[in-house]
């Protein structure tokens, strides 16, 4: 076996071991360790991606001495490796972009605890990407939930504790539903490994033996993941959680944590029940409807906000709606567009949070849009990044959001006529609504104040901050302009999934 096949395993183990090690380190050393672990994982993931591109199909890595249905295993294909690469990169940039604010927001004696959370979050995301086993997925969903909770409450304000409590309650409800679903599936198939479950599921559907429990399990799993990733009616925890936590936390939460769950759902749809059975259960229609409603309602809520970070948080609800709408379209192209939108949203949203913090820094730490006037002139790099992020969110050509919207529209053309019409109309309305708040904010940020108080004060941002913002902009542009190879990888990965 080639040595490179061990790389995903190394990434996971590195992230997991660095967690306990950080607990005895000082805050500074824990930070260095965490940043280097994320960087190493990024390099190893790139190597894995490069390796899988040349392979004919995905490879399976046995976790232990015992092969598949008896032991654990992970599965590495093009899509998995690509997702791991992009998640590591976005996590690294969110950390470097928010480093300055982290030192300010997190007390020194709790700094190492923060990085334990980051390390284990990375591990759980990687496992959710690579796992080929339902129960392993569930265990790491738990780790993901607890570490996300830690990220929210590390700042220690009353608002953070409240937000973390809300998040905990909703998220545990979601985990509970997922666990019930996994147990039902184990009860009717006798397997936990995705491949074997899939075979058993096909048999169940063909012989019509345990169809009712199967349908219930599919429904519970979809709803559980939808709650955890804040699909429209379950989004009540999201605005507080995203807007009051520290900069790195909010960008990681919005871009990665919810996306890890969505990828797990994607695996469930493709590898466990299969797309046909998923459509048979009707769960895709439900996701479609709530996705569409979320697209509109998230933006309507965002327009009413006066706090910039709450506005960005509400726009996340709309973007999650897009992804579920793609899942619900019922065609292959919709899934591809949804997976691409996971990336497009992850990169643009984390950039928006990082830049929003930069803008607030030069406006007396205020997030109110009135105080933010002209802040783009005071902190140019943050302002520029904010404009790029906004344009991507609205869907202007050259930026990532445009590509995913075009592909959503293209996918809708292949769908059933009702869904096609609804999707196209919702896309149009949602774009206008997005423009209403994002473009307005971008204009406001670059309009000088009437009686300028900070006239001479030219603010200097740190090199690390500027560098991470530049890389963010480059990623968004690459996703917008050179999207063809990425779509090829996603399509190839999804074909390998089934």
């Amino acid at each position, binding site marked *: 076996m080639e040595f490179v096949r061990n790389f995903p395993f190394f990434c996971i183990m590195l992230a997991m071991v660095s967690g306990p090690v950080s607990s005895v380190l000082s805050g500074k050393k824990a930070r260095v360790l965490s940043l280097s672990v994320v960087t190493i994982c990024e390099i190893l993931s790139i190597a894995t991606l490069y390796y899988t591109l040349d392979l004919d199909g995905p490879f399976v890595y046995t*976790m232990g001495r015992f092969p598949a249905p008896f032991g654990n295993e992970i599965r590495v294909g093009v899509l998995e490796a690509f997702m791991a690469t992009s998640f590591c990169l976005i996590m690294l940039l969110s950390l470097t972009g928010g480093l300055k604010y982290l030192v300010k927001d997190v007390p020194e004696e709790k700094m190492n605890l923060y990085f334990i959370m980051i390390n284990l979050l990375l591990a759980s995301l990687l496992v959710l990407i690579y796992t080929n086993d339902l129960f392993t997925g569930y265990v790491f969903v738990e780790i993901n939930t607890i570490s996300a909770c830690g990220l929210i409450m590390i700042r220690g304000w009353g608002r953070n504790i409240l937000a973390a409590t809300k998040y905990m309650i909703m998220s545990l409800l979601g985990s509970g539903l997922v666990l019930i679903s996994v147990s039902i599936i184990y009860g009717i198939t006798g397997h936990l490994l995705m491949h074997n479950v899939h075979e058993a599921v096909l048999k169940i559907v063909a012989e019509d033996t345990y169809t009712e429990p199967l349908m219930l399990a599919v429904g519970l799993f979809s709803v559980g993941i939808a709650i955890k990733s804040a699909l429209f009616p379950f989004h009540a925890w999201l605005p507080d959680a995203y807007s009051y936590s520290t900069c790195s936390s909010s960008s990681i939460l919005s871009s990665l944590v919810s996306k890890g769950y969505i990828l797990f759902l994607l695996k469930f749809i493709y590898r466990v029940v299969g797309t046909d059975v998923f459509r048979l259960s009707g769960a895709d229609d439900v996701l479609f409807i709530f996705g569409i409603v979320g697209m509109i309602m998230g933006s309507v809520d965002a327009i009413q906000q006066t706090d910039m970070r709450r506005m960005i948080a509400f726009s996340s609800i709309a973007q999650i709606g897009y992804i579920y709408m793609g899942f619900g379209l019922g065609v292959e192209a919709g899934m591809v567009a949804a997976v691409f939108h996971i990336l497009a949203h992850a990169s643009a949203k984390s950039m928006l949070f990082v830049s929003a913090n930069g803008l607030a820094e030069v406006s007396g730490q205020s997030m109110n849009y009135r105080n933010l006037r002209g802040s783009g002139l005071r902190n140019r790099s943050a302002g520029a990044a904010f404009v790029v992020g906004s344009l991507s969110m609205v869907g202007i050509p050259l930026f990532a959001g445009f590509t995913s919207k075009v592909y959503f529209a293209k996918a809708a053309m292949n769908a059933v006529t009702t869904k096609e019409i609804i999707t196209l109309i919702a896309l149009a309305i949602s774009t206008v609504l997005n423009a209403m708040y994002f473009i307005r904010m971008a204009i406001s940020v670059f309009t000088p104040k009437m009686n300028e108080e900070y006239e001479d004060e030219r603010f200097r941002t740190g090199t690390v901050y500027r560098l991470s913002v530049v890389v963010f902009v480059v990623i968004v542009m690459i996703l917008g302009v050179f999207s063809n190879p990425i779509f090829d990888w996603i399509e190839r990965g999804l074909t390998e999934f089934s």
Partner: protein
Amino acid sequence: MSKIRSDYETSRRAAFRRYVSGEEDLKSIDYMPMFEKQIAEEKKEDERATEHYLVPPLKDPMEDAKLHAELLGMKWFRRLYVVMSVALCLCIIGAMVYNVAFMPAFGGTDAPTNNEVSERYLEKGQEETGVVNMVTGLILQYRGFDTFGETHVLFIATIAVMILLRMGKKEIPEEVDGEESEGDVILRTIARFLVPMILLFGLYVLVNGHLSPGGGFSGGAVIGAGLILYSAAFGFTSTARFFNEKIYDILKVGSLGLYSLLIIYYLFTGANGIDSVVPLGKVGAIISSGLILPINVLVGIEVACTMYAFYALFRKGGL
């Protein structure tokens, strides 16, 4: 001209324009006629002064009435909310109960769970892992990676509680220690008698995990309970003589680190088809079953530390 201009000022178009340029809040557009501009200006001043105000300042009776109506609406909303949530729960319960009728019978011989997987665990488990207690062999060898993750769930839960409750060194009140060293006489007498037995029993469960029911998780929980009883009876000061923050850190990180090394060795050799150098030993002996015994002990230490840490964090905010 002036008339047209004032028309424009009050029109929705102008309001939208003001909204776009960031001068106006969208919520205020609809219900703010121009003659109230003066009041609104004052309100804005107030808002600027206290940016996250909780109770809006009440000024005119109209607003009072509005607030009243709002509260009434809230009341109805709360009632509706209760009714809806009960209905939702009933729906979910109904779906679950309905589902039970279709599930395979519990423990039935023809249930899908009785397949080649559980067969192999039961028939070949002893030979392949060297354990008598198959549950231990299953969680530490066949599905060792899951258990590794589960141990980290415990670890990260302690860390999350620490984020919430850990105070700086200076903030821990000294009196807590003083108060608690004066334990109850009955409690102290019984604890003196019970604690060694509990610890011994925990140790027994721990090291016999591969032979009899028990293992790292249960043995660790027993030891943790013994530690909690000790510190409840004799106070934190006497517990700190043999179990303080330093020792806690060493034990926790040492056990998790060693566990990680062992599991990495196990997973890596297993995946790459390298023969493991750890002998399985004679089935049924205390020192047998390869890596399972040390892993059980390490998991036990981690669980005991977690249990005690939760207690100490909730009692006084630090170890």
